[in-house]
């Protein structure tokens, strides 16, 4: 099954209430698979092709406001268009899931894979001080598994969550075990779990109002402080990463998503050559595993940030190591996927020398 198809099947299976999307390569299979599966006849999940990414994200905003598990998927230019809605979701604390199957940019760019939306995803992306929870799958299995995880985190923190994938993972076919079926939540469950949801003032409760607007600057600052406190809790609680061959590593490669798969081969080839390389794969990009990278930085002789972009996660590694460890970057752009040989050469040229 393709990564994009896995997203669709996982959505149906994890009790997703609604999908709203607009076609764009290389992720159109998500909506296409949902259309074929017709979940509205089985689980009751709503599937709607919207008139734009702008409408899609605002549908997710509305659905999430009303306490429903809703998602959209797109690729880089489409996700750029969604940033307004994502900022509004962050501001009004509305949960929801955005899947970005990245392609190369800027602008219309290319349909080939890329990881160049790292900044956009991990820095908020829209206006204002906010963060989106960002998960980075490196396999078709994780494409499926992260859908439910993203919804759980989004509702736990009342925050938008994103699956930051790329054209490689989206289009790649792999075996996977689909997650077990989980029913959609009932009206009673939603009322109990989401007392803030705008789905009608049941039993005459006070009205719920979801807005990101507050004209009084003192109140707006308090709201921002509340958001920042929440983000700090997420930073302390939701760091996710995987260490491979790191125990005795002298050189550390940090890579996520499809780059991590290439890096795995790089580590294997390095070890065959006698270079003690290890891989740290963040499976969440925000919050970022800064402490682990700082810790590893004290052990290794150098860190290579290997990303399929011009060097974006590099900045988070530099912040984590704070000048204590030599850090270099290797990446390709414009949709070109690097080979393991290129990465080993870069490691040698930039760090081993």
């Amino acid at each position: 099954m393709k990564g994009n198809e896995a997203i669709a099947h996982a959505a149906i299976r994890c009790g997703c209430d609604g999908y709203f999307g607009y076609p764009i390569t290389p992720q159109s299979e998500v909506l296409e698979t949902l259309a074929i599966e017709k979940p509205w006849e089985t689980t009751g999940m709503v599937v709607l092709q919207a008139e734009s990414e702008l409408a899609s994200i605002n549908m997710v905003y509305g659905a999430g406001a009303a306490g429903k598990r809703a998602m959209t998927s797109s690729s880089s230019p489409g996700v750029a268009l969604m940033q307004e809605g994502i900022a509004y979701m962050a501001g009004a604390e509305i949960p929801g899931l955005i899947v970005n199957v990245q392609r190369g940019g800027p602008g219309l760019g290319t349909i080939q894979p890329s990881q160049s939306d790292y900044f956009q995803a991990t820095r908020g992306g829209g206006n204002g001080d906010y963060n989106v929870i960002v998960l980075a799958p490196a396999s078709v299995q994780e494409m499926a598994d992260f859908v439910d995880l993203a919804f759980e985190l989004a509702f736990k923190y009342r925050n938008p969550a994103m699956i930051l994938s790329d054209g490689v993972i989206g289009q790649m076919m792999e075996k996977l075990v689909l997650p077990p079926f989980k029913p959609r939540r009932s009206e009673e469950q939603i009322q109990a779990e989401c007392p803030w949801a705008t789905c009608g003032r049941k039993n005459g409760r006070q009205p719920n109002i979801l807005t990101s607007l507050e004209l009084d600057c003192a109140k707006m600052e308090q709201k921002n402080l509340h958001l920042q406190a929440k983000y700090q809790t997420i930073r302390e609680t939701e760091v996710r990463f995987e260490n491979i061959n790191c125990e005795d590593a002298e050189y550390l490669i940090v890579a996520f998503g499809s780059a991590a798969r290439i890096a795995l081969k790089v580590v294997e080839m390095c070890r065959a050559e006698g270079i003690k390389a290890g891989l740290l794969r963040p499976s969440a990009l925000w919050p970022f595993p800064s402490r682990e990278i700082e810790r590893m930085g004290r052990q290794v002789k150098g860190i290579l940030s290997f990303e399929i972009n011009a060097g974006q996660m590099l900045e988070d590694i530099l912040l984590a190591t704070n000048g204590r460890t030599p850090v270099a970057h290797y990446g390709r752009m414009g949709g070109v996927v690097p080979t393991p040989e290129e990465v080993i050469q870069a490691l040698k040229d930039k760090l081993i020398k």
Partner: protein
Amino acid sequence: MTEEEIMRPENLVYKKPTLLNDTPMHYCPGCSHGVVHKLVAEIIEEMGMAEKTVAISPVGCAVFAYNYIDVDWVEAAHGRAPAVATAIKRLWPDRLVFTYQGDGDLACIGTAESIHALNRGEHIAVIFINNAIYGMTGGQMAPTTLMGMKTATCPYGRVADLHGYPLKLTEIAATLEGTCYVTRQSVHNVAAIRRAKKAIRKAFENSMSGKGASLVEIVSTCNAGWKLSPEKANQWMEENMFKFYPLGDLKDTTTTDNSL
């Protein structure tokens, strides 16, 4: 007779709708929003839908509608209310879902969302306040600003070669397969208010009976933006706005008596 003797339930001939709370409104005296808010509150109450209504407020003067009517509200990004309403209604089909939008929100920045939600036949009601100006930001040109009309961004009057023409989105909506009821009303006198109330009620009922999308345009005054007294604004509206935006039903597929 004392005040207490007069103020008895049996003497009651009129009262403020229960759902309209006591928060002081930010609307300018003479603005049509207050009257339309009252009608909306009254209708929700009369329909017994207070516990089953989800309303969507826009960006514009009505952004704070959520402060005045005691139902659940979602504040949408500028122009996106119909998309927000689409999802809520599809996921909570037994709820009364309506948007309340101004001309800039509905007919300019949100034109795509408006047309597509209406054309999909979403079972929502759209209330469209058309006062031909951007009130909230201080009186700039709107998509519905009349030719020759002066605003902060067309201070010498709207002219076609510089600004293009006013948009009749309601007429466009009437041509869409997804709309079941499209009407243009006003609230400048008692008779008009009664007709507007009937129209909004019908739109809300259509939403609940799943007949498709309804659009109720209310040609409105913005005396502050127009720089006229409330009375003169009403007069100016009757003389100028109604000529370009004639009142009445443009489409009604819910009744057999369809006198266009």
